């Protein structure tokens, strides 16, 4: 059975490290749901968050292969832990032509942040867990989503 896995990598910040990671996965015919690479508290180490939907066996094989990459220092399949916090950041541009007061109320209820407002649209940012983001997008969908950009999920262990 395929399930969603969030894999966190600690990698050396070398030229081509992202190509090695993505190449290793695409070479095996797997698709990446999201990937995000960011600096950490240590200058030469970057953190990569990788979200994949695959079977346990395939995830185990991918994790082992990632571990073999010389530039990869550590691989953690965060979804194997009970306690972890997942967040995603989104920016979305929504049409205001249908019912602006209702839309603004929804935005307020979800504690999303209005970044810009014009006569035709509103630009909103929001941070949240997968469930909250999903719900919010479902609710604003009927107003007309003009553009949506998502950071991809990232996670920390809460232990």
């Amino acid at each position, binding site marked *: 059975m395929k399930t969603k896995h969030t894999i966190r990598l600690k*990698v*050396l910040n070398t*030229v*081509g490290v992202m*190509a*090695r990671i993505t*190449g*290793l996965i695409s*070479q095996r015919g797997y698709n990446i749901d999201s990937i995000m690479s960011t600096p950490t508290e240590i200058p030469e180490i970057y953190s990569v968050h990788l979200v994949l939907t695959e079977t346990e*066996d395939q995830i*185990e*094989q991918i994790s*082992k*292969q990632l*571990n*073999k*990459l*010389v*530039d*990869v*220092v*550590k691989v953690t399949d965060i979804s194997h832990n009970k306690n972890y916090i997942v967040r995603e950041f989104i920016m979305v541009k929504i049409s205001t032509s249908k019912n602006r007061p209702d839309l603004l109320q929804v935005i307020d209820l979800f504690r999303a942040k209005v970044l810009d407002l014009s006569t035709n649209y509103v630009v909103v940012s929001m941070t949240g867990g997968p469930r909250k983001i999903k719900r919010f997008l479902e609710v604003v969908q009927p107003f007309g989503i003009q553009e949506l950009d998502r950071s991809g999920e990232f996670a920390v262990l809460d232990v």
Partner: protein
Amino acid sequence: MNGSQIVIDALKQEGVDILFGYPGGVVIPIFDALFKEKELNVILNRHEQASVHAADGYARSTGKVGVALVTSGPGSTNAITGIATAKLDSVPIVVISGQVKNGFIGTDGFQEVDMSGMTRTISKHNYLVNDINDLPKTMKEAFHIARTGRPGPVSIDIPVDVLLAVLKNYKYPEEIKLPGYKPTVEGNPKQIKKLAETIQKAEKPLFYTGGGIVASGAEKELLAVVEKTNIPFVTTLMGLGSSDADHPLFLGMPGMHGRYAANHAMMQCDLMIAVGVRFDDRVTGDLSRFATKATIAHIDIDPAEIGKNIQTEIPVVGDAKHVLKELNKILKACPANGWCKTVTAWRDESPLTYSQKPGEALAPQYVIEKLSELSKDNAIIVTDVGQHQMFSALYYKHKGPRCFISSGGLGTMGFGLPAAMGAALANPKRQVVAICGDGGFQMNIQELATCAINNIPVKALVINNQYLGMVRQWQELFWNKQYSKVCLKQTPNCPPECKGPNPQCPEVYRPDFVKVAEANGVKGLRASTPEELVAMLKEGLAYPGPVVMECIVRKEENVYPMVPGGKPIDEILLGPEKEKA
């Protein structure tokens, strides 16, 4: 020192004595620095693929890191097949390639290719050195990565401006800082204990060993364990020679062209202890029906191999030599049980068979048996890929590790001759025989000139059946005998529906290998009958320089035993000789 001099100094610091290479525009600085070099023997091959295979043959025959040096663009693309060959068989080589200068990278400059992009999936690791300051540590890391853990090829791509840049206060680094690279050598004691207990309880245990035994130098440790416990063992193509071919507990090579006893033992055992192997499809056949009765234990230095192809109950990550040594300490000796007697009896009752009568056309199996006999089972055998490779694996009596060298994983035709050159240069006191088919021999035949000029005494035994024999065998058995483009004598005048040798076949075979040998300054010999063969082998093996020994063999001989692709390995075809008996 400039970048080129640093490269050469690093090679010496790493103990390199032979370099295989081919010059070109961007590597002129390195070759310039090599101009008066005395410590390094630089062999000029005639093709970059051959340089990498030669480095590979050097590495496989010694366990040391082989080194090839090529130019950018086509030099690099020509090296690719060699690098992939080394990757699939876990061979430690370092391939240094020149690159266009930094500012030109990405502009489609003359002879520019993305070498680091191309080698990413076919190397153990690769580097593009943009800065002269990174060059010393890159060289150090490359050799360390190539030879440690599970060995493999490392590619270093160096732009020409870095080769020319000067580094003040150069010192070859002593330490390596690779936080993401720490191979596990020592096996977990708890797992080893669990394995020992399981072995002691098993009724039908079997060791399945491979290239990892050779890579880790664990031949003695393996024999100590199997002899103490009287557990029979099989050895894959990559591990042949790690024990003597006539060891009483050795059941032979398993797999598609494996021995009857080896394949049946694998299917019947209740505990399979896999050591330094990767459950390759050419060994396992149909994986879903492979060794279904067995508990699988797997010892490997590469954790990603464990569980890759088959579910493993007892994983032990570690170096084979270390793990087997520790295992031996806790195992109790036990006598040969009924299972051991049964499987060794299977072996004794199912010898390999073929027919050869005096005066009739040569059987390739006979050629290999005679070679084994006349070289006192003691030559370093390097093969190409195809039927002759399997005949060499089955019929030569391999003795000692690193004496059977073959492209197993990638199956690279053209590997034999250049790899044999590397092995011959690394082992000047040994007889080195390259066994090739007439197809593969032509894929790097230009290296005969390299052998002649440098007096590299490779004995090339060309098994000429005038076909691409392995593909022809598949066409005969599974493709309704439609011999599509496998006949090397076929001309445009041949009938398109030709189904094999017939009286209308063209008489002439091209090239004339004896003449090719002579044109290259290599001794050329030919044999067509058993009597001629013995005389030819005696003459050729005794000759001090390189020789081509062409054997005109039967055109349609097949390799048996054979398991058809996708079948379980006990559904084994034993061939016409067995069926007659």
